[in-house]
Every structure is written in structure tokens, then in C-alpha cells.
């Protein structure tokens, strides 16, 4: 599904964000990415949906390789992904509903099916009542949930979520986590960067911990029982 092979990512202005990271995420897996601020979690996720390209090494997602992908390959890959960005990235001039339906329009979903799917996704994140609000008319947590709904609506085979509960209270966090588990149970692989260690501890999903651009712990690795 996702395969990072000896990936190093260096930014011209701030040095190395990831150094020699090798990571493999299998089909249908649920993986937590943890680690302190600036460890490289978002960088791994950005590489996975090819927003960033590795400085060296190779990233391969669902058969699309960072070494050979064309602009069109990347667009096609992203249509099959669901992405929750750390900074939401909602379209400012569209309502919650339009932000979600937009993701379906882009991938050419038949017009007739869109309203139902959108309504379902908004209900799943508990935002049915805010369908017609613009992002600036939503609270921080509400915006975050619109971002989650948009990532889920196209039934992705891989969900990439960067800190999807940072602005949510405990109950909403549990609700969203429950939702992600259900989606995962239905076959979607989930990679989720989070600071919420309680969440990580409350389940026994695979956990990958980063620090200073290196993997310092992987619960799936041999001898990780300690």
C-alpha cells in the first residue's frame, strides 16, 4: 500500500526533516504516527500523497512511485485517497456541504449520488446541522470535522489523517476515532498522525514513533514488545 524505502527529505532552508526512513504500511492496516512536534510526522504523510517528493529514496503508494509519477498519475492516486490535513484546507467560499461534495465532483461521481453521500458523511461527523455554514462561520472543531467528512466521503482505500482530533473535545474525539475504526474494519487502511497518546494506548493498533526525522519505535517491528 505505502512503501517508503530509505527516504530522506531535506528542505533547503531548514535541513533534514526525515533521514533514511523505511516504512511499509499494508492493506487495511491501522497505523498511528506519533512523536514530538517537528519530528517529521506530517512530512511522512505529505510524501504519502506526493505533495512532497523525497530528496532521496523512493515512495511508492498503490503502485504509483515518486520516481516516475506524472502529474496525472498523482491526480488519479489522490482520488482514491482520503486526506485530513493538519490545517484543514477547506475552500473558504464554499459551505461545509459544498466542500464535501466538491471532493466527489472532482472524481466524477454521478450527480444524482452526491447529495446522499454528502449528507451521510456530514452526519457521521455530527455536523448535519451545519451543512450550509461557510468555514469561517464554523468553530475550530466543526471545521476539523468538515475536513474529516471530506476525506471519508469518497470511500477511500487509504485514509491519511494528520492530527484529526487536535481541535476536538474528548467526546468528539472518541466519536471520530470510533468512526475511523469502523472504516478501517470495512477495509480501508488508515494512517493517522496524533499527539493524543490516550487514544493510542486505548487501542492496540500499530504505532510508529518518530523523533528528529527517524523512526525510533515501531510496535510492528520484531522485538518491539519492550
Amino acid at each position, binding site marked *: 500500500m505505502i512503501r517508503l524505502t530509505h527516504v530522506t527529505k531535506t528542505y533547503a532552508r531548514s535541513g533534514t526533516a526525515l533521514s533514511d526512513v523505511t516504512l511499509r504500511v499494508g492493506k487495511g492496516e491501522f497505523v498511528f504516527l506519533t512523536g514530538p512536534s517537528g519530528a517529521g510526522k506530517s512530512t511522512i504523510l505529505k510524501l504519502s*500523497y506526493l*505533495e512532497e517528493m523525497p530528496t532521496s529514496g523512493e515512495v511508492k503508494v498503490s503502485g504509483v512511485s515518486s520516481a516516475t509519477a506524472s*502529474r*496525472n498519475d*498523482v*491526480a*488519479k*492516486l*489522490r*482520488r*482514491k*485517497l482520503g*486526506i485530513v*490535513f493538519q490545517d484543514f*484546507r*477547506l*475552500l*473558504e*467560499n464554499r459551505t461545509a456541504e459544498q466542500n464535501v461534495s*466538491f*471532493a466527489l*465532483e*472532482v*472524481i466524477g461521481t454521478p450527480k444524482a449520488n452526491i447529495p446522499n453521500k454528502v449528507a451521510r458523511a456530514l452526519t457521521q461527523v455530527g455536523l448535519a446541522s451545519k451543512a450550509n455554514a461557510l468555514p469561517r462561520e464554523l468553530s475550530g472543531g466543526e471545521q476539523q470535522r468538515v475536513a474529516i467528512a*471530506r476525506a471519508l466521503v469518497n470511500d477511500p482505500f487509504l485514509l491519511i489523517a494528520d492530527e484529526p482530533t487536535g481541535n476536538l473535545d474528548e467526546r468528539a474525539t472518541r466519536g471520530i476515532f470510533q468512526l475511523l475504526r469502523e472504516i478501517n474494519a470495512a477495509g480501508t487502511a488508515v494512517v493517522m498522525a496524533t499527539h493524543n497518546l490516550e487514544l493510542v494506548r486505548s487501542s492496540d493498533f500499530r504505532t510508529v514513533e518518530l523523533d528528529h526525522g527517524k523512526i525510533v519505535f515501531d510496535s510492528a517491528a520484531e522485538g518491539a514488545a519492550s
Partner: protein
Amino acid sequence: MSAWRDVGRDLRRAPVLNMLTVTTIAFSLFAFGLFGLVAVNIRAALLKVEERVEIRAFATEGTDVAPIAAAARQVQGYPEVMSATVVTEQQALARARQELGEFSDVFEEGFLPASIDVRLKEGHRDPASVKAVATRMHGFDFVDDVRFGEEWITQLYRLRNIAFVAGVALGLSFAGVAVIIIGATIRMAIMARAREISIMRLVGATDGYIKRPFLLEGMLKGLLGGMLAIAMTYFAMKSIEHYLHFETVFFERRFVILGVLAGALLGVVGSSLSVGRHLRQAI
């Protein structure tokens, strides 16, 4: 259609920018139109003047009318020739009297020669054709002299050629300027929507999908600008006519339509270039 909705949203959102775009397109095409109008009117004037291109072969004094008439019939058969008329000595005198009015007494003696007056068909009034016909008419025995104002015809054609070349050159440069201005304004619209475009890319929109509303927008503005330009050109012509008492010709209907379509094309090309450049830069 989502693309149309986007266009509507965008047009409503930045009315000033959009007015500026339409106005610049309109002015570019207006400049183009004004030049075209000058060209069209020069052409019309040339056509009128050209009609008067005439070759006169004068007969030696005292030649009979019969051979002149025979020669005229022969000349009439030339492919370039529209008409070949015989003017006898008497007719030449009468014509001169009429043209000169009160001074007609001077011609009492009747020493004007007979002539064959030849008019050429359209498309054969260029200096080369005229000269060729004149040379052939020199071949008749009785012909004393052939006059056709060589200098004058050459000048006329040089003017026409200059007008044509200047027209193409100016037209192309104006179109270039228009594309650049459109590109610049669309670029501003794109910069204002850069974040939106990058989000679209991230949820999987292809370049084509992203481009579509911008192209539509460019086309709409181009159409509007083109229509405005036509209107402005028309009123400019009317006021020239009114204030300078100068009779003018306007474009034919199909050229008007072509002008508006040219506006649309400019809009699409300008948009396409600048969206394309933006997309190639990002991600």
C-alpha cells in the same frame, strides 16, 4: 455545471478586476478595430479610384473610324478588359467642350485626336496588367500614343501594399498586447485563488478540471470585450462621420461576428497561457 458556478462566483467576487479585464480587452480590440476601419476605408477608396484606371490609345490625326472600331472590338476580347469604347474626333471635342465650359471657344478648330478608351476588370488594375494591355495596344498601326498614368497607378498600389503590411503588423502586435493584458489580469485572478487551486489538486482534480472555469471566464470576458470593442468602433466611426463630414464604410456583418469571436479567442488563449504557467509551477 460546476465550472459555470465557479465562473459566476468568481465574477461576482472581484467586480473591479473583472471590469478591468473586460475593459482592457475591449480597448485592445478597439484599437485593432479602429485600424481595421481605416484599412477598410482605404480599401473602399482605392476601389473607387481604381475604377477610374483607364488606358487611352490615341489615333494619328485623320485615321478612319472603321479600323479604330475594329481594333476596339479586338481589345474588348482581351481577358483583362472590361470595356473598350471608341471616341471619335467629334466626340472628343464635344467632351472637352463640356468639361471646360466657358473656355470652349478655344477648341473651335477641332484638333483633338480620336481614341479607344479602355477600362479594366477588377483584379487586373495592377501596374503590371495595365502596362501589358497598353503595350499590346501600341501594336495597332494607327495608334500614335497610349496614356495610362503609369506613375499614378504605381503610387496607388504602393499605398495599398503599405496599408496591407501595416495592417497585418499592427493587428498582430495589438493581438499580442491583448493576450498579455488578459494573461496578466487572469494571473491576478489565479493568484487570488491559488490556495483554492492547490486544494483542488490535493483532492485529485486534474489540470483540465481546474482550468475549465478559468477558460470559460476568459472566453466570457473576451466575448464581452469584443462586443464592447465593436460598439466603440461603431460609435467612433459615426462621430468621425458626423464631425469630420467624411463618408465611411463599416465592417461587414461577418467581420463583426469574427471580431467578437476574436475577443473570445483572445480571452481563452490568455487564460490558458496563464493558468498553464501557474499549474506547471505548483506541486
